[in-house]
Structure formats: structure tokens, C-alpha cells
């Protein structure tokens, strides 16, 4: 065999920086994209990231380690997660009802789901407070059983469920709509009972959308301010949420302290979203090439 017949060892092609497209305008559109994202997203984030350090490392630590801040964080992230998780089965049920059945008033219900989106959060807060306050219609009933709704963590939870619901429902609806009835029929002819169809066929198909809906609801709930402050009661260390803490610090001209809390929130939110996205990616990859 001659040397020429020996194939050269394959050179692993490096991924190029830019895959050139036949479409013109790459430079211009990338430039605008970077400038816009930079101005709108990156710059404020940099400002937020830089601001706290004028307190010094120990100052930031002192700020974040205070029991009031720690409690607010637990409250905000804990209740947001809980509300998002509660919205998962209920949102699934609502999305199922709206896509699978045809009944009078379905469109009205469908529009109602969007209301928490559309309502100014302060209006939602006032409305929820009016209902759940000890003098309100639902609050009074709950009070008879010794349950405090408004001005307690439960009230915050209710507000967070309220604002998170549309995210879950809207994430699931298109997927449910696309879910082929034939797939369930196939499962039935193969001998699967209703339980097996739900848990082995339908839920796995919905899982990526469900995770993404829940993560959106969670992200929204963490940042929610307007509707919560009215119903929360805002007792420091008891029903004070992290965003409110930022506002309080700002009102006291403690910009660095507010930024420190904000930065910590960004860090925790970012971390949880990355984790959720990783899970979602893994779920979604199964269904695609």
C-alpha cells in the first residue's frame, strides 16, 4: 500500500465563530442586538453588581446576614416555589378542562385565566386584600376557623398563586392542544388503563411545558411586589418579602444596601432558573431529534 492511500487522521474541525449565512446584514443586526441588550439588560445589571461593594465585603455580608433579610429571602423564595408547585396540578387541570372539553362559557373562562396577567398588580393586591381581610367575605369565613389569611404568609401565598396561574396554564395549553388523541387511543388499544395513560403517556409529553410554566410562575412570583404588599401586612421578619425590603432600603437612601439585597436575589433567581432549564432541556430532548 502506498503512503497516499493511508487516510490522514481526521482533524477535528473547530467550531467557527460565525457560520456565514447567505442572508445579508449580519454585522448590522448583531450590532443592534448587542447594543440594545447591553443598554437594557447588561448595563443595569452591572450597576447592580457594582453598587453594593461600596459597603465593602464585610458590609455586604453584614447586610445579607441580618435576620430580617434572611427571613425575607426565605419567605420570598419559599412561598414562590410553593405557589408555583401548587399551580402545577391546578394549572394542568384548568388547561386540560379548557382544551379537552367543549362547553358553554369556555371562552369566558379562557379569558379569565389571563386576568392576573392583565390586571395592574396593585389593583389585584387591593382586590385580594378586600376579599381576604378579616372583614372581607372569604377572610371572615377563614377567621371563623381560626385561619388568618390576609396579613399572614398565607395571604402572600394566595397572591403568588393568583399571579402565577396564567403562566402555567398558558404554557400547557398549546401542548395539550397538539397532543394527538390517537396517541391516547393507541395506549388504550395496547391495554393501558386510565391511570397508565395519564402517568405514562400524557404527563411525560406535557412535562417540558409544565416545567417551563412552573419556572416562569416561580420567577414572576419572586419578583412580585404590587399585589403582595397590600395583602402581606409587611411585618418585618414575619411577612416582609425581599422586594419590599429593597423598597424600604431605598426609601431610607440606603442604595448600596438595596443593591446588595437585589444582587443576592438575582443570584438566587438565576441559579434556580438555570437548574430548572437544565431539567427542562433534559425532558424536552427526549421528544426531539
Amino acid at each position, binding site marked *: 500500500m502506498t503512503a497516499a492511500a493511508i487516510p490522514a487522521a481526521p482533524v477535528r474541525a473547530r467550531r467557527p465563530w460565525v457560520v456565514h449565512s447567505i442572508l445579508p446584514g449580519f454585522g448590522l443586526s448583531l450590532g443592534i442586538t448587542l447594543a440594545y441588550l447591553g443598554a437594557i439588560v447588561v448595563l443595569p445589571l452591572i450597576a447592580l453588581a457594582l453598587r453594593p461593594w461600596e459597603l465593602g465585603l464585610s458590609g455586604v455580608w453584614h447586610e445579607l446576614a441580618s435576620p430580617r433579610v434572611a427571613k425575607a429571602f426565605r419567605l420570598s423564595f419559599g412561598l414562590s416555589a410553593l405557589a408555583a408547585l401548587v399551580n402545577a396540578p391546578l394549572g394542568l387541570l384548568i388547561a386540560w378542562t379548557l382544551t379537552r372539553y367543549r362547553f358553554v362559557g369556555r371562552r369566558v373562562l379562557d379569558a379569565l385565566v389571563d386576568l392576573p396577567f392583565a390586571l395592574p398588580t396593585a389593583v389585584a393586591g387591593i382586590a385580594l386584600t378586600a376579599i381576604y381581610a378579616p372583614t372581607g367575605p372569604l377572610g371572615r369565613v377563614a377567621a371563623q376557623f381560626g385561619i388568618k389569611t390576609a396579613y399572614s404568609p398565607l395571604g402572600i401565598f394566595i397572591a403568588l398563586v393568583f399571579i402565577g396561574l396564567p403562566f402555567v396554564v398558558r404554557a400547557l395549553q398549546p401542548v395539550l392542544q397538539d397532543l394527538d388523541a390517537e*396517541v391516547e387511543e393507541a395506549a388504550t388499544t395496547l391495554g393501558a388503563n386510565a391511570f397508565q395513560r395519564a402517568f405514562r403517556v400524557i404527563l411525560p409529553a406535557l412535562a417540558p411545558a409544565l416545567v417551563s410554566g412552573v419556572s416562569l410562575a416561580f420567577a414572576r412570583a419572586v419578583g412580585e411586589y404590587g399585589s403582595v404588599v397590600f395583602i402581606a401586612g409587611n411585618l418585618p421578619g414575619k411577612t416582609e418579602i425581599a422586594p419590599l425590603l429593597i423598597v424600604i432600603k431605598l426609601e431610607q437612601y440606603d442604595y448600596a444596601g438595596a443593591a446588595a439585597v437585589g444582587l443576592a436575589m438575582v443570584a438566587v433567581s438565576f441559579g434556580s432558573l438555570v437548574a430548572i432549564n437544565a431539567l427542562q432541556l433534559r425532558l424536552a430532548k427526549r421528544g426531539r431529534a
Partner: protein
Amino acid sequence: MNSQPTEDTEGRTGAAGGLSLDIRNISKSFGRFPALNDVSLQARDKEFLALLGPSGSGKTTLLRVLAGLERPDAGEVRFGGEDFLSIPVRRRRVGMVFQHYALFRHMTVAQNIAFGLTVRPRRERPSKSETADRVADLLKLVQLEDLGGRFPAQLSGGQRQRVALARALAIEPRMLLLDEPFGALDAQVRRDLRRWLRELHDRAGVTTVFVTHDQEEALDLADRVAILKDGRLVQLGAPNEVYEHPADPFVYDFLGAACRLPGTVSDGRLTVADWETRAPKDAPSGAVEVFFRPDEVMFAPLDGSGLAGEVKAVVQRGPDARVECLIEGRLFELQARGPTLPNGVAPGLAVRVKPLRPHVYPKP
């Protein structure tokens, strides 16, 4: 493969084996639209039966009734002597193959095929290794040995359809139901799969009911063809039988290209325009519709008989030619093969065209 006992439980023995599937007077409406109207038909054990008809003819509805996915308004289905309609879908053990595969997208090919085994009640469920063996056998059967670990999205349409078939076969079905299984595939894949499906059926020995709107597919594949129209069974018979003796103009038209002309029958003679010939057997008397296939004609026969026509155009395509011919004021596209097309047939020529096997139906 586990197969049905061939014993005819009702003692109505047919010539080619026991009666297996007995559909009696099935009717089904969706709202005010009658999808099936008093349909009765029988299939023998291990028979390959095609339900053929245009869309809206009720063929898919009938298949779904057999699968248990649709409940008929009236009628009875017996299978192997059992009242099939009283058995819930999950227990019918029918292998259903859907037009769009209906695979479980989040499961691998192997998991898809194993699904029917893994959902069985615990005491009937085969062990993990038995299931794995069975999946391996089926993958081999559908010639997808190496693809067990792939997801459906990573397969071609033909491969997906074979996975769907393997999944249906995994439950050792008593009856295989196929709903336009090749409808979404391109022509070449269709033809290959068709031949392969027929072999598979012969090996597996399962009664198979197959829905299609493609007459070529039905005639090519099935032991017998049931032709449906507007929810009614129009004709049932062997492919050759229905092609040679279509029961009515609809069937004639549906099974292939058709030319039609008015004519009359009296005293055993058929007259079409200026052409007179012996009427086919059993032809009705009086005004009739005469049908013939555009490729079953003879140009300028020696005896000079036939329909007077004028050639308008000749398009040669390899050994075949399409001859556009004006007969009785209507333009027909006739097919001629080398030997039946004499030299010199060219546009402008007046010729006689003799239909070789005219079919005659009473005028509606």
C-alpha cells in the same frame, strides 16, 4: 407468533377456513351525519381484508368500531364467536396501527414496542428479560435491529410506521387493524412496505383489516376487498372479482379510469351510437350506461366494427401512448400499447375504436 385458533366456533365453515369476524348491521351516526349505514360483512380467520372507499365513506369509522374506539348505534360484531362489542377496548387485544403512527414521542423505540407488555397487570406481565427478548424479536421482524435506543423523532416515516406495527404486534393481537398505514409515506416506500406487510401478515397469521382509499393498494394487498360508499357496503369480493365485475358504476369508476357512453340493450344486443355488438351477460334491457376502461380498447379492428372517432392528439410515452379521441362529441383519453396501436394513428385521422370488455349498467 401467537395466533388464533382456526376452529370455526359457529359451525359455519367457509371453503377457505373458519368464519372469524362477523359484522352485522352496523350503523353509526355523528350528529346527523350517518357514517355507517347497516353494514354487514364477514372475514375468514387469518384473512387480509381491505376496506376501500373515498374519504367520508365510513371505512375508518368501521375500523374504529372494530377497535372499540367508536361505539356503533346499532348492530353486532362477533369475533371468534365472542360478542366483540361488549369487550372493553383494553381487553380486545387488537393491534391498531394509526395513519400518523401515534408513537409515544418521549419513549425510545424499544420502550414504545414494550409498552403493551409493561402495562399489563402485574401477574400477567412478562419479566424484564422476557420483555427485552420479545422487543428484540420484534425489532428484528420489522428490520430495525439497531434502532431500539432511538427516539421516534430520529426515524424516517417508514421506520416509524414499522415501529408502530411492531408495537401493535407486541401484544400478540387477535386482530390487526391498520388505518391508512402508508398514507403519509412517499410512493416508493409505500410499495416496499406494502409487499413487506403482506409477508408479515402471512407469517403472523392474524386476521387483518386494512383501511385505504388507494384502490391499487387494496387490490394489490388484500385477500378480499370491501368497497364502501357513503357509509354503505357496495361490494365485497376478491380483488380480481371486484375489478372484473364491478357491482355498479361507482365501483367501476373507483377501481380505475373509466370511459362512459349512453347506449341501449335489446334482444341481447348492445347498441352504442353506430356500433352494435353482443350485450354482456346479465345486461339489463333498455337505456343503459356503457363503461369501458381506456386501456381496454382496440383501434381500427379488422372487422371494421367499433365506435366512430376522430383522433385529436397522440402522446407517446415509451411503449404506451395516450390517444385523445373524440367519440360521440366527447373527448376520451384512451391508452394504447404498442400492439393495439396501429401505425399511422395520428391527429386528424378518423378511426374506429372497439371497447374490448364493455360493462353495462342500467341508466339511473
